[in-house]
């Protein structure tokens, strides 16, 4: 891209996306300021919020078109090349993506039309020659500069940013629309909260908070979009925290409910734990790199590299030297050479272990935000928020932020870090899935499924499948928001009954919701109809297939890490099992609670409309699989090293699979995943759909395991024992110390002071006061004697003056020599 083109496209995208980003903020300001004064029964705040976020979607779409035409749809052409390459080498047994891509291949523009039959790694070379070919970076505004630390509002726009923008705005728009219906209870001046019990058997009454809900939603969207648009890691951190605050506000929306406020606190505190690691990572990065920017792709500024460009060269390689603790990574200057420290003239480098620490620190933030293994317990509790909030948190915004950052920061992660990521994801996905089997609250099932799916994404990132992880992020966002909204519709229809054991047979009462939910279930379960040339499947199949293929490829390279494939594979089956369990328990069979069933009703169209839209997207957003438009968009932003794969022999020897290798295992993994999913689905039908086996018997036979799962793997108990109780014990000790020693010391001091002051008083009274009195008495006596002179008679004073003058004159005349 030429500098002129870069500048013009950059400016256009900057303002399009910037406007899409700021619109919700404007909406928030108007809603939160205006809403308080307007009628509580007004729907205006909702329409405003929908308008803002919908406008954001429109602007994002325009930005997409702008970006595409500016790059002459080069991203699609490159992917075409890639697959062409793969075919030329005959390494891909999977014909389906090739056929699709071949059908959709646009005419390659001249500047991208390099020879197809180039060297074996021609695509990689072409890609590597310009790793940020479609990325635009720049700055909105310089907030402050402290010495070398420049804090800017930057932007970094590549295809991932644009995809995220479109995804977030689209899903958020749907959720806003849904929430307009869902939250209509709040359109009153006197809302009765049935969950809050006051003494005397009454319920808590308060004014409706419709406007407040939508203002929070707007702020949430603003924060998430800002995070996606951010061009430096510090800015990401700022919006990261803002997202945390918004989730806190929204989870604790029913603040009067004890459970809600506790859940909000829990989410907030857990996130802070992760953010602490994030902060450490930030410090390391700034200390050693001196900048926060991701990458500087502006051709007009060649010598000002961002973080990615400093760590990795154009081919995605890390240049390092030394071994052990002396192992260090040489920083690039962005021009092809090594960066030189301006002060000492030495080449700049960063110790390898610090790079690991920085990566782990940043990833700690992702753990907290995306509810990964040690910090996953906040997410189920976050179900205390209204269902639209859950949908937003679980699909497009909050948890997506963690995966997004891990993907965005991918170039900074060395293989050691990636391995940690992979194992964390692996553990998480298994834990989440197993708990989801036993949970009966419809929203909690979805919550645990979210944890599990996030684990999948992290796993994919960790095993080198950058594309697979983010692909799953997008598809998951669609079907998970769909399912949440559907569950919200069910809850709304059942008058806030959430337990699946109270439901059943609702398919007849709310058919549209049921079918929409079924679309989501199939999508997440990864069911597909395999055909010889391509699999007819919903979006989830494609992305999960990609993840499993990557992890299979990884396992093929690193046999010792076999769990990283086997656990996800098993979990794929479990996923299908619990998701179908949810559907069967809710929608099929006989009603378990006749009262609930009788009063259940289909939701209004304002809620069903988003469901329909989202089901369409959940079904077809990943159409074409890895050759589809969504995949191509993502491929265009894939970091170079993820494309090629790498064999690393360091502290831990890991071989990361490249695209070519992944393709080899694609079919195998797909078949395995499909089989696992089918197994899970059939089992689920056996247990819950057809009722052939009574789940209760299984539960009683495995009661130990069941209670372990019900207790969420005892994590809360574990944390209670590990952190809360010790703190209590220490606090008691501290209290005892305070009472015994500090208070005693203070009392003794006080008594001593009282004693001293007693003596001081005596001294004051006898010595000081007497002295003062003597002075006062003397003054008084003098005044009394002089008082006689002060007659107050004006005329006498005049006489005094005259006499005085005369006296002075006589004195002068008599005594002064003339």
């Amino acid at each position, binding site marked *: 891209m030429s500098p002129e083109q870069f500048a013009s496209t950059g400016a256009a995208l900057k303002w399009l996306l910037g406007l899409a980003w700021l619109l919700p903020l404007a909406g928030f300001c108007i809603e939160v300021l205006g809403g308080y004064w307007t009628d509580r029964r007004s729907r205006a705040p909702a329409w405003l919020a929908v308008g803002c976020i919908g406008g954001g979607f429109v602007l994002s779409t325009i930005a997409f078109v702008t970006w595409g035409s500016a790059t002459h749809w080069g991203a699609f052409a490159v992917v075409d090349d890639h697959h062409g390459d793969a075919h030329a080498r005959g390494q891909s047994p999977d014909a389906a993506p090739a056929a699709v891509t071949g059908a959709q291949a646009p005419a390659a523009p001249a500047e991208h039309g390099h020879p197809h039959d180039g060297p074996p790694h021609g695509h990689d070379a072409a890609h590597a020659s310009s790793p940020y070919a479609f990325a635009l970076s720049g700055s909105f505004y310089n907030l402050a500069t402290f010495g070398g630390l420049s804090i800017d509002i930057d932007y970094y726009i590549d295809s991932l940013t644009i995809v995220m923008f479109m995804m977030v705005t689209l899903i958020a728009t749907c959720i806003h629309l849904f929430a307009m219906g869902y939250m209509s209870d709040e359109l009153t001046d006197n809302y009765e909260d049935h969950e809050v019990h006051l003494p005397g058997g009454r319920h808590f009454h308060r004014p409706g908070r419709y406007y407040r809900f939508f203002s929070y939603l707007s702020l949430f969207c603003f924060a998430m979009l800002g995070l996606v648009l951010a061009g430096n890691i510090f800015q990401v951190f700022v919006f990261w925290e803002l997202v945390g605050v918004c989730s806190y506000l929204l989870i604790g929306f029913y603040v009067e409910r004890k459970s809600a406020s506790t859940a909000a606190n829990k989410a907030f505190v857990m996130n802070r734990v992760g953010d602490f690691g994030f902060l450490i990572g930030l410090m390391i990065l700034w200390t050693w790199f001196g900048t926060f920017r991701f990458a500087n792709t502006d051709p007009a500024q060649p010598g000002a590299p961002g973080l990615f460009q400093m760590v990795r060269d154009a081919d995605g390689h890390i240049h390092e030297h030394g071994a052990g603790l002396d192992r260090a990574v040489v920083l690039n200057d962005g021009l092809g050479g090594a960066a030189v420290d301006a002060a000492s003239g030495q080449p700049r480098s960063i110790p390898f272990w610090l790079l690991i620490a920085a990566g782990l620190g940043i990833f700690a933030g992702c753990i907290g935000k995306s509810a990964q293994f040690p910090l996953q317990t906040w997410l189920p509790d976050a179900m205390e928020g209204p269902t639209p909030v859950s949908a937003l948190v679980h699909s497009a915004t909050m948890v997506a932020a963690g995966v997004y950052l891990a993907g965005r920061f991918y170039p900074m992660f060395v293989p050691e870090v990636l391995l940690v990521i992979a194992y964390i994801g692996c553990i998480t996905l298994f834990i989440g899935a197993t708990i989801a089997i036993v949970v009966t609250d419809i929203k909690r099932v979805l919550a645990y499924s979210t944890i599990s799916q996030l684990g999948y994404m992290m796993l994919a990132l960790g095993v080198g499948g950058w594309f697979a992880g983010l692909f799953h992020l997008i598809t998951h966002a669609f079907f998970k928001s769909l399912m949440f909204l559907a569950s919200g519709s069910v809850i709304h229809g059942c008058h806030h009954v959430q337990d699946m054991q109270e439901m059943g047979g609702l398919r007849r009462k709310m058919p549209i919701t049921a079918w929409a939910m079924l679309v989501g279930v199939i999508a997440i379960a990864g069911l597909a109809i395999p055909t010889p040339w391509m699999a007819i499947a919903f979006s989830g199949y494609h992305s999960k297939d990609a993840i499993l293929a990557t992890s299979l490829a990884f396992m093929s390279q690193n046999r010792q890490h076999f769990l990283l494939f086997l656990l996800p594979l098993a979990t794929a089956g479990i996923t299908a099992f619990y998701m179908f369990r949810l559907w069967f328990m809710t929608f099929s069979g006989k009603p378990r609670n006749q009262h609930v069933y009788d009063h259940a009703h289909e939701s209004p169209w304002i809620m069903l409309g988003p469901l329909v839209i989202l089901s369409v997207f959940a079904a077809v957003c990943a159409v074409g699989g890895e050759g589809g438009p969504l995949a191509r968009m993502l491929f265009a932003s894939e970091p170079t090293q993820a494309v090629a794969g790498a064999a690393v022999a360091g502290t831990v020897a890991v071989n990361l699979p490249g695209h070519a290798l992944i393709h080899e295992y694609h079919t195998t993994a797909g078949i395995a995943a499909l089989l696992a999913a089918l197994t899970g689905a059939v089992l689920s039908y056996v247990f819950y759909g057809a009722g052939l086996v009574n789940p209760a018997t299984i539960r009683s036979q495995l009661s130990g395991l069941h209670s372990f799962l019900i207790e969420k793997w005892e994590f809360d108990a574990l944390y209670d024992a590990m952190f809360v109780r010790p703190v209590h014990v220490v606090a008691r000790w501290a209290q005892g110390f305070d009472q015994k020693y500090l208070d005693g010391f203070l009392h003794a001091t006080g008594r001593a002071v009282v004693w001293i002051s007693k003596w001081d008083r005596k001294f004051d009274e006898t010595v000081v006061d007497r002295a003062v009195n003597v002075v006062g008495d003397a003054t008084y006596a003098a005044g009394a004697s002089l008082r006689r002179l002060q007659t107050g008679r004006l*005329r006498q004073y005049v*006489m005094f003056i*005259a*006499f005085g*003058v*005369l006296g002075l*004159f006589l004195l002068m005349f008599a005594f002064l020599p003339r």
Partner: protein
Amino acid sequence: METVIFTIYALAACGGAIAVMVSQNVVRMAFWLVISLGSVAGLFFLLHADFLGATQLLIYVGGTVVLLIFGVMLTASGPMLTIRSGPGEVVLGGLVGLAVLGMLVFGMLSVDWESQQTRMYSAAAEEGRGERSMGYNPEGEGNTARRLGAALLGVRFDRDLGRNSETLSTGYLLPFEIVSVHLLVVLVGASYLARTKRRRPNPLEESLES
């Protein structure tokens, strides 16, 4: 001729002043004061201070004395007009007055004004200031309004236009401004002091109300 006029004015001024001192009726005192002050204004004219003479007439005779008579009439009812002081006081006052007068006259007669004046003139001539700096310009005698006004605005004709005047004197601009502010304050203060007071509430009524 000037001596005759001076004699008339001086006699009127001194006579008026003595009459003020002697007379017991306040309004008559005011009348004699007018005579005295008016004659002093005449003396000012004789001394070629015409602006000051006019000011004296306008402010003292036209303003202050009217004010005084006002005060007399507002405060005095019949017997109050003549508050006599004791004869002892009068005698003592007279004696002191005579003593002070003697002192002053003695003092001023003991100075040789003529030689002082010649010495000053010669000193001024030596310094090169010439006759201009002695008093004011004889050419403009009697017409001091412009020069006084200019001095009040910060320009001194007799200094700034001389030969050795590299720097401008500031004249009386600052005192002028201070005096104008002072006048304003006095105006406000006097009207505040002299305003009609609200009648003091009757304590009996107050106690009844409470």
